[in-house]
């Protein structure tokens, strides 16, 4: 089941270790195009490390990652971005001193067609390019209901909104695959519900394949089409929410230890 036919992303026997300490051992799974896949597991189960492997922050010692057809062992975040992988971080990684609009626009940087010189002198493709990028950014802002914060400095926004801005910046890049590292961390039930709505919109309206890490079982089960459960760097379950929920290992290893 490592590489299913219409898999957008598939991991092949990935192993990762830091100075001999195994973070991930021999994990394989596939994510179908258009689905929402949730990675769950206790803290330190290697979820974030896995995300970091997928967009090239870490290089796995063994195994390979396939992203729409192409297999790669060596990857770095820069190339990941250019091949259509966007992500958000567990502890928000926004450009704090820039406005929401500017943050979202930086997400468009891959799609700029005009050079900085053209933009500065406002000649050639610059003007049309600007309108295209700006209007797409505005579409994202509209979709995530950020209009009222458009010109607010990100650093001054409440936590929940910042999470949303980070999602917006990722969406603005028109990614094929969107990696969300605990998009609902530290939110109350209502906020989680709202955020889940936005993630769903991203998936349905913008047609983005989503891989997300989330602790709240309720949210995960409601949101995702496909759940992968990790424990101590190993995969202990993989399948539809229903199956996973009934899986005894999961109940033992994961739900048992959940607070």
């Amino acid at each position: 089941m490592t590489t299913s036919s219409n898999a957008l992303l598939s991991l092949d026997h990935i192993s990762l270790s830091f100075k001999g300490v195994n973070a991930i051992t021999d994990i394989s799974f596939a994510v179908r195009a258009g689905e929402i896949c949730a990675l769950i597991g206790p803290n330190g189960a290697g979820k974030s490390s896995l995300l970091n492997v997928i967009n090239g922050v870490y290089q796995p010692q063994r195994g390979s990652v396939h992203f729409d057809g192409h297999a790669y062992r060596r990857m770095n975040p820069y190339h990941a971005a250019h091949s259509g992988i966007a992500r958000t971080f567990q502890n928000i990684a926004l450009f704090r001193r820039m406005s929401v609009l500017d943050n979202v626009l930086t997400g468009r940087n891959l799609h700029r067609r005009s050079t900085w010189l053209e933009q500065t002198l406002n000649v050639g493709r610059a003007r049309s390019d600007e309108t295209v990028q700006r209007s797409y950014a505005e579409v994202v802002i509209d979709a995530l209901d950020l209009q009222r914060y458009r010109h607010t400095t990100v650093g001054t926004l409440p936590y929940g909104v910042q999470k949303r801005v980070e999602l917006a910046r990722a969406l603005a890049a028109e990614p094929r695959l969107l990696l969300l590292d605990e998009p609902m961390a530290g939110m109350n039930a209502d906020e989680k519900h709202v955020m889940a709505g936005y993630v769903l919109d991203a998936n349905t309206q913008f047609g983005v394949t989503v891989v997300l890490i989330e602790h709240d079982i309720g949210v995960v089960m409601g949101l995702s089409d496909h759940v992968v459960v990790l424990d101590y760097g190993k995969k202990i379950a993989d399948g539809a929410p229903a199956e996973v929920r009934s899986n005894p290992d999961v109940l033992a290893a994961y739900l048992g230890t959940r607070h």
Partner: protein
Amino acid sequence: MANPQPSTLPDWLRHQAQHRPHAVALRHKRLGAWHALSWHEVATAVEQLAAGLAQRGFAAGDALLFVSHPREEALLLSLAAQWNGGVAIPLDPHLSDEALRAVLTHLAPRFVFAEDDTQVDRLLAHEGLRVIDANPRNLTPHPHPAVTDYRTLAIPHEGGFASVAQPHDDAFAFVRLDADRQLVAQRLSHATLAQEAQRLVGTEKLGADDEAFAARAFAAASQARYLIAPWLLSGFRLNFPESLATRDNDRRELAPTLVAGTRETYARVAQLVDDRLPGARSWRRRLINRAQRRQGGPLLRVLTWWFISRPLREVIGFSRTHAALVIGPPLDGTTAALFAALRVDVRAWPDTGEWRRIEHRREAPAHQRHAADGAAEQPAY
């Protein structure tokens, strides 16, 4: 179509399109920029939408339901429905599923207009509906066969597409849950609307160069009476805010001359002012309070006016308002005092019209889905 005194809303629309084709009729803020439609453009748009509806089998007497916040597509489409002699029935988008089901079963609309995917999906849950998707972000059209994309609805129609609306057809109908949570409806014919609008335009001296701000829920009957009908009659400019969350900012940018709201609308503005005024013992607040209580000598009053009240009017977007209407119950004390201090004369207009029961039905408590921050919590005025 050279009839001296138009008698239906479509006639009035044509009338304006002939008299001031290039004047701005409709403005809406979308994706951060204000967009404008001239009377001519509005008329043609409505005409083509009407043609589109007719071709899809929407005939006189049919009902078109709107599950939407105030937005220009909804307005144009409702006019198109009336153009074909149909009735437009706006609903509060926060309407509970129960109430929605009741409405759908009892009004049997030919089409339902939905403002976004959430509403579309919610409507598709009810079988046998034909949904018009506003698709505001111009994304790929909704796959479901029963869904028509708003953009594909209009069809260019050579030689004009005549309106079949009659003065005594119902133009708008409104439904709500009354005190003991039962579904009641109110119907407004073209004639009534035109006649009430005449009165409003007369008394409030509304003219073609007024700016109106349509921030009230599309679902409220008064919207049709005190905003849409007068708009068509007197030909002023109707403006839609970008979103509930940004309405205060948009109002400030526009500085409308005509504001129609309920007591809550004004109470909210007063609240906003109260929240953003400096602390209780700051002199700014003291001056405002004194002004509200009509205290202080003439000098103090003049100073307060020039240094506090007047700038404050600018900030909350009431600097040019000459017609401030409160529909239904009048302002509460503090709000009234504030607007008096700002020298904004808020006049009360009745929210008349009898509500007839449609049918008994128990109601589940309303539940709200996500909208702009807090906007869902704020009432949709």
